């Protein structure tokens, strides 16, 4: 596998193979970020693909001030937040017109803890917290960024990140009680 910096330089000069290598190296991280934000839905991979398309468009101007992984996380979070807003608008419209589209998912609240594994439970719990808190949890707990890095990616003060994390953690802890 090509070294990352070498890959970036070659991809900037139009080497498709080098760009492919970057996609291979970072797709796990990007897809996990987007799925954590949006849930296991069909459009999650579309958004993840869009992240790489944005990277491809931005590559000529990419100066490497930020690590590529940080840069990709920032795009992934922003696009996911946009998708959530779009979904919310669409949801409002669907509620207004009382038409059930295929995107509408009904949460099965009757399903007990024993019917789901921990992964599903985590995913469901994440979808129950506000997107701004979810973004913090995704970067800090799923991606393993430090509080400082998370604050830089989200352009927030470190104190805000820490307090959001503490509150989100408490909420997740109460939702996921039976699994912990």
């Amino acid at each position, binding site marked *: 596998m090509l070294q990352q910096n070498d890959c970036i330089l070659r991809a900037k000069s139009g080497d498709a193979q080098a760009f492919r290598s970057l996609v291979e190296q970072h*797709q796990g991280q990007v897809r996990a970020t987007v799925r954590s934000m949006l849930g296991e839905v069909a459009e999650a*991979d579309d958004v993840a693909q869009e992240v790489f398309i944005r990277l491809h468009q931005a590559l000529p101007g990419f100066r490497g001030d930020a690590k590529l992984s940080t840069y990709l996380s920032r795009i992934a979070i922003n696009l996911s937040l946009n998708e959530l807003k779009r979904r919310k608008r669409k949801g409002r419209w669907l509620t207004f017109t009382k038409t059930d589209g295929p995107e509408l998912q009904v949460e099965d609240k009757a399903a007990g803890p024993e019917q789901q594994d921990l992964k599903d439970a985590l995913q469901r719990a994440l979808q129950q917290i506000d997107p701004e808190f979810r973004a913090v949890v995704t970067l800090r707990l799923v991606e393993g960024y430090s509080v400082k890095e998370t604050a830089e990616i989200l352009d927030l003060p470190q104190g805000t990140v820490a307090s959001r994390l503490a509150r989100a953690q408490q909420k997740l*802890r109460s939702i*996921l009680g039976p699994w*912990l």
Partner: protein
Amino acid sequence: MKDEAYYRGLLSRSFDEELGQAESKALEKALLQSRELREESARLRNLREAFRSFPKPSDEAFTEAVMRQIEQSDVYRFPAYWLQWAAAASAAIILIAGISIYWSAGSLTAEALVGVSELSPEDAVTLLQAY
């Protein structure tokens, strides 16, 4: 002794931020004294561990889909790139032509541009007589 909610708050914060010395000592003491708080600490650790093991999907189909979309977007962008190059080349040709006319005729008047700046009326008469 503060209430349990206070220590739970400290515990929750302790994973992501450095507590003050007094807070840190108070939490340590509370952890030694309270079984519930130790259990809560273990639960939070489990929660964070579970998030760390969140699946990171990776497959060839995804890479192919991205590369296909990029190829398509490059195809769509080709005419724009082509036009940019053509415009740049045209500008360069006009500039070179202008410089060479100025070099040979000494000005960029309409006569110089059509190549008749060095013709005098007598030359015109001579030309008419020749035909």
